[in-house]
C-alpha cells in the first residue's frame, strides 16, 4: 500500500531522523520524531518546524482571475492588497465544503495563489477547472514543484531573521506575505502561535530544513500539528469541515461573506440555511473526567445521541479532556450539560467555546 503514497522532498530527512512515518492525505508523512508532547511544547514555548510540503499550491491568473476567485471563494477578496492572505472555503452549491484554503493575492494584477489541503489537491484542481468555463483564467497546479516548511512558535521570528537571514520577516504582519527570488514567506500557521510558512523549490527547502535543524529548531510531526491546531480552535477538513458540513454549521460564518458579497458558489444555500435556522452547530465540550473523547464518539443527552465528536484530546497545553463536536442546535448554548459516550461509559461534559488555548498571533 505504501508504494502508492507520495513522498515530500524532505522524506529522506524524516527517515534519517528516525521519525514515525504514517500515511496522511495520500502522502507518507512524519507523525512524530520523539514524542507528540515534547514537540507540541516546543512550538508553544520556543520554535518548531513542520514539513508541510504535502499542501497544495494552485495558481490562478488571467483577465478574469479577480472575478473567478470571487466566484469560487467564500471570503471577500475585493479589499485585498498585493501581499494579503485570506482564509476561507470553496463550497458546493448546496453550501457544504469542497475545501478550506488560503488565498494569496499576488503582486501582479489578476493573480492568486490558492493553498489547499493535501488530501484535496486533485479534487480541488478538478473543481476549479470545472467552474472555470466562461472565465478567461489559467489554473496551474504547482503542488509538485513547491516544498513548504512551517516555522512556528514564539521564537519563530528570531530564527527566520537570524538563522535564515529573512530580514523582512520581522516586519511582516499577520496574514501577509512577501516574495524573494525563490521563496514565498508568509506570516501564517496552523498552531495558534506566531510563525511563518515558507514555500520554496525542493532544493531550497532541503537546505532550509538543515539550517534550522542545526540552529536548534525542533522538528515536529503531524501528531502535534493536530494537537496544536485543535487547541487553537482551527478546523481540519474531514473533521470539523467536510462535504457534508457548511461553514455556518462549523461556526466559521465569519469567513463566508454572505452580506459583503452578492455572489459565490454556495452563497444561496448559506442564506437559506441562515434564514431557516441551523439545525446543528460545532461546539467545544470539556469533560470533568480524564477520559479522552475521540473523533466519532457520540454526544448524548438523557441517553439519546445529540451529536458526534469531530476531534478530541487530552489537551497538552491545558491538561483537560476537551473536544470539538457537531451537536444538535438545542444543545449548543455555552454551559449546556451533555454527556460523551466513551466505550462502555458516559462522562459528563459542559459546552464551551471551540478554542481551548489563548492564541499568540502577531497582530
Amino acid at each position, binding site marked *: 500500500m505504501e508504494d502508492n503514497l507520495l513522498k515530500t522532498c524532505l522524506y529522506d530527512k524524516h527517515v534519517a531522523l528516525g521519525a514515525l512515518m504514517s500515511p496522511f492525505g495520500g502522502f507518507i508523512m512524519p507523525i512524530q520524531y520523539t*514524542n507528540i508532547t515534547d514537540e507540541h511544547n516546543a512550538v508553544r514555548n520556543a520554535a518548531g518546524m513542520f514539513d508541510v510540503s504535502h499542501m497544495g499550491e494552485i495558481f490562478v491568473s488571467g483577465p478574469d482571475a479577480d472575478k473567478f476567485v470571487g466566484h469560487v471563494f467564500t471570503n471577500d477578496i475585493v479589499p485585498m492588497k498585493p501581499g494579503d492572505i485570506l482564509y476561507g472555503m470553496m463550497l458546493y452549491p448546496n453550501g457544504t465544503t469542497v475545501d478550506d484554503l488560503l488565498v494569496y493575492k499576488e503582486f501582479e494584477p489578476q493573480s492568486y495563489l490558492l493553498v489547499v489541503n493535501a488530501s484535496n489537491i486533485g479534487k480541488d484542481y478538478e473543481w476549479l477547472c470545472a467552474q472555470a468555463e466562461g472565465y478567461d483564467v489559467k489554473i496551474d497546479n504547482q503542488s509538485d514543484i513547491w516544498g513548504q516548511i512551517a516555522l512556528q512558535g514564539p521564537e519563530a521570528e528570531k530564527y527566520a531573521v537570524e538563522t535564515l537571514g529573512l530580514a523582512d520577516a520581522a516586519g511582516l504582519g499577520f496574514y501577509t506575505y512577501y516574495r524573494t527570488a525563490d521563496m514565498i514567506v508568509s506570516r501564517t500557521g496552523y498552531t495558534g502561535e506566531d510563525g511563518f510558512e515558507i514555500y520554496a523549490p525542493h532544493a531550497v527547502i532541503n537546505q532550509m530544513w538543515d539550517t534550522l535543524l542545526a540552529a536548534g529548531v525542533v522538528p515536529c510531526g503531524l501528531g502535534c500539528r493536530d494537537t496544536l491546531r485543535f487547541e487553537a480552535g482551527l478546523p481540519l477538513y474531514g473533521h470539523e469541515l467536510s462535504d457534508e458540513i457548511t461553514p455556518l454549521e462549523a461556526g466559521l460564518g465569519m469567513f463566508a461573506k454572505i452580506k459583503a458579497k452578492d455572489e459565490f458558489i454556495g452563497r444561496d444555500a448559506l442564506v437559506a440555511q441562515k434564514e431557516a435556522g441551523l439545525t446543528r452547530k460545532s461546539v467545544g465540550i470539556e469533560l470533568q473526567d*480524564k477520559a479522552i473523547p475521540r473523533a466519532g464518539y457520540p454526544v448524548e443527552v438523557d441517553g439519546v445521541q445529540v451529536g458526534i465528536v469531530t476531534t478530541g484530546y487530552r489537551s*497538552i497545553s491545558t491538561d483537560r479532556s476537551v473536544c470539538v463536536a457537531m451537536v444538535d442546535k438545542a444543545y449548543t448554548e455555552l454551559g449546556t450539560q451533555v454527556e460523551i459516550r466513551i466505550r462502555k461509559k458516559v462522562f459528563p461534559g459542559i459546552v464551551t467555546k471551540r478554542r481551548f488555548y489563548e492564541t499568540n498571533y502577531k497582530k
Partner: protein
Amino acid sequence: MAKTVEGLYYSESHEWVKVEGDVAIIGITDFAQHAMGDLSYVDMPEVDDELEAGEEFGAVESVKAASDLFCPVSGTVVEINEALEDAPELLNEDAFANWIMKVKMNDPSELEGLMDAAAYEAMCANE
C-alpha cells in the same frame, strides 16, 4: 527491543497474566506500551465487574489514540491499580511491574489458550 518476563502468560492482544492461586494479575506488555508511546490515560474497569474471556475491559490512551484492553480470562475484578489513575506513565516506565487489574478466575484452564514468553516474542517479531 521490547522485553518479556518468563513465567507469565501472554495474549494475542498484548496483555500479560501472572497467576497467584485463583487470581490472575493482568497488565499490558512492554511491546504494547512501546507501540502506544507516552500514555496519558488508563480507562480501568470497576471492582466486581464480571468479564468474559476476550471481553473488552478498558483502554490505554496515548495523545494520539485509544487502544482497547481485552481480558484474557473470565472472572470477577477484585482489585484495580488506582495508582494508574493519576500516573498512567507508570506503564511506560515498567509495564510488567505495574499491573492494571486483578481478576478472580472462573476457569483457570483458560490459561492454556494463552502463550508463553517465547511464543509471544515470536508473535511480536512478526508484527
